[in-house]
């Protein structure tokens, strides 16, 4: 979500994107001197330090320690491991490293697919619901429900539906539609990848829908009116007006969805239980198992730190690339 920093930094966001010229940069109350802004952000800083930053730093420190079951009781005494934990987890010829690499690649594929489909469903739904029609309010409420359900509840329902013997999915696909020669396994084996993608999309696309619906309200009606006078049809309007206007929000939305999906712990953890099948071995659960099950918090932390660095890198690269292409298309 660092994407959004540029949007909140005054004087910068206004110079790029179609929202340009909406408001002029204004004079701030004071520059630098006053204690007021610091007092206002102080509570937020204290909380962020206590809950996020300090534990984070401790986590990074842990990644340089040999923090196994022998030392967790008094981990101040755990010997330093130098870069050993990192060496272990990036040794892709070794078992730990290759398992991490496999999990990482699975997670990338998962995140790309889950974000792609969530976004696609979200934008389709939002565009189709731009007009008022009967049942629109009901549909909107229905579409929002998966997002509002507590994650444990919604994923456990999916686990129930995806059972091999008694699940709804096999009942429909095999017993009723006869699409499969024999009932498929959805929670073990290779299909588990499909399962986790579907469940993640089901949970996340309402968020995309909500954000895009909000963004659509910001498109001035005059644009549509003018194009209608020019004889543009609805499909052309979507292509020429709606899609370009959504570009800035898509940029942020895709990034936010990617970070959430990539970090997602609850969906795979509740869906697959104590051990995820290789095809559904997403990185957050992988790290959880590496640290909490094998009690090696040193190497587990090292994995987390690498994952964090990766996300920072992706975010920075993404923002650079999209802002470049934004600038080009707006020039």
């Amino acid at each position, binding site marked *: *979500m*660092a994407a*959004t920093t540029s*949007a*909140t*930094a*005054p004087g910068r966001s206004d110079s790029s994107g179609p929202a340009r010229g909406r*408001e002029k940069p204004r004079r*701030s*109350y004071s520059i*630098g001197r006053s204690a*007021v*802004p610091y007092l*206002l952000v102080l*509570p*937020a*800083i204290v909380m*962020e330090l206590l*809950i996020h*930053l*300090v*534990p984070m730093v*401790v986590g990074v420190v842990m990644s340089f320690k040999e923090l196994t079951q022998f030392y967790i009781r008094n981990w101040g005494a755990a010997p330093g491991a130098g870069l050993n934990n990192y060496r272990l987890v990036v040794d892709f010829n070794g078992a730990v490293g290759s398992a991490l690499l496999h999990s990482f690649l699975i997670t990338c594929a998962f995140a790309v697919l889950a974000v792609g489909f969530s976004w696609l469903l979200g934008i389709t739904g939002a565009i*189709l619901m*731009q*007009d*008022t*029609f009967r049942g629109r309010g009901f*549909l909107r*409420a*229905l*579409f929002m*429900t998966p*997002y509002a*359900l*507590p*994650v*444990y*509840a919604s994923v*456990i*329902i999916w686990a*129930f*539906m995806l059972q091999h013997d*008694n699940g*709804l999915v096999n*009942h429909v696909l095999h017993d009723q539609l006869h699409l499969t020669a024999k009932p498929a396994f959805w929670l073990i084996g290779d299909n588990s990848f499909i399962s986790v993608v579907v469940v993640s999309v089901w949970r996340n696309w309402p968020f995309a829908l909500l*954000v895009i*619906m*909000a*963004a659509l309200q*910001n498109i001035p*009606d005059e644009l549509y009116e003018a194009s209608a006078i020019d004889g543009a049809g609805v*499909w052309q309007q979507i292509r020429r007006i709606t899609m370009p206007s959504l570009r800035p929000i898509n940029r942020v939305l895709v990034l936010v969805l990617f970070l959430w999906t990539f970090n997602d*712990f*609850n969906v795979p953890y509740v869906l697959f239980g104590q051990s995820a099948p290789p095809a559904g071995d997403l990185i957050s659960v992988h*790290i959880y198992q590496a640290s909490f099950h094998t009690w090696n918090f040193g190497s587990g*932390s090292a994995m*987390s730190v690498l994952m964090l660095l990766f*996300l*920072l890198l992706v975010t920075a690269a993404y923002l650079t690339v999209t802002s470049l292409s934004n600038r080009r298309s707006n020039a």
Partner: protein
Amino acid sequence: MPSTYRSPTARPMSFVWTRRIVLTLMAIFAALPVYVMISTSLKPLRDVTEKFRWFPGHLTLRPYVDIWHTVPLAHYFVNSTIVSAAATGLSVLIAVFAAYAVSRYRFKGKRIFTITVLSTQMFPGILFLLPLFLIFVNIGNATGIALYGSRAGLIITYLTFSLPFSIWMLAGYMESIPRGLDEAAMVDGCGPLGALFRVVIPAAIPGIVAVAVYAFMTAWSEVLFASVMTNDTTRTLAVGLRGYSTQYDVYWNQVMAASLVVSVPVVAGFLLLQRYLVTGLTAGAVK
């Protein structure tokens, strides 16, 4: 609602039919698990462990009675309500202050502040679960303030989880409130806080509601930290739901009934307030 001037009848049939078909498919996708939850919650356990059936063979409300003593659900309800409400209230308050500073003041370190706060969204929870736990315990040992195992610990954890998104969204929202308003209030003799409370907050209500909904949902359904940081007396609903799959049995019908009961407050609240959410996002985040 905007766009109403575009009469639906003006749409070509191809668009109308695409809309009908696609929205129907989406509705099925969204509704199917919800239907399964409701229908399963009305079945006796025996039926649930057999082959799936679309309609319950015999309807029973028994699971809705049983859920309350299989796990102390009512007790967890109280815990979750207290924790989520307190976390939401504090989170909104802190976010309002911070967002006000970010949107109205220029100060040294502002960029670092916003970047840092937002990048915490990237932190994998697993990385700081154990350190946070240790910090809570050490604070407890040093000061006697019990954070581990108490509701207070969960409250400050959850409020911080929703803080980055809240600050970002509210700052965006406040940017859209004309400064003339609070400058006028300041001229009238209000201090910065007076301007915030008399002018900015009332104008930012949709954004605040949106943020509050988000914060409440975050707190209401968090599982990982709650499973480690709570005990018998402070356990929350999201963790308590796991109590229906015991060592020996999964009470699927009760899981579904309890999930339904647990979901109703958030889903209802969310749906009632979603109009605000759209407005809040429109003005705040998506510009």
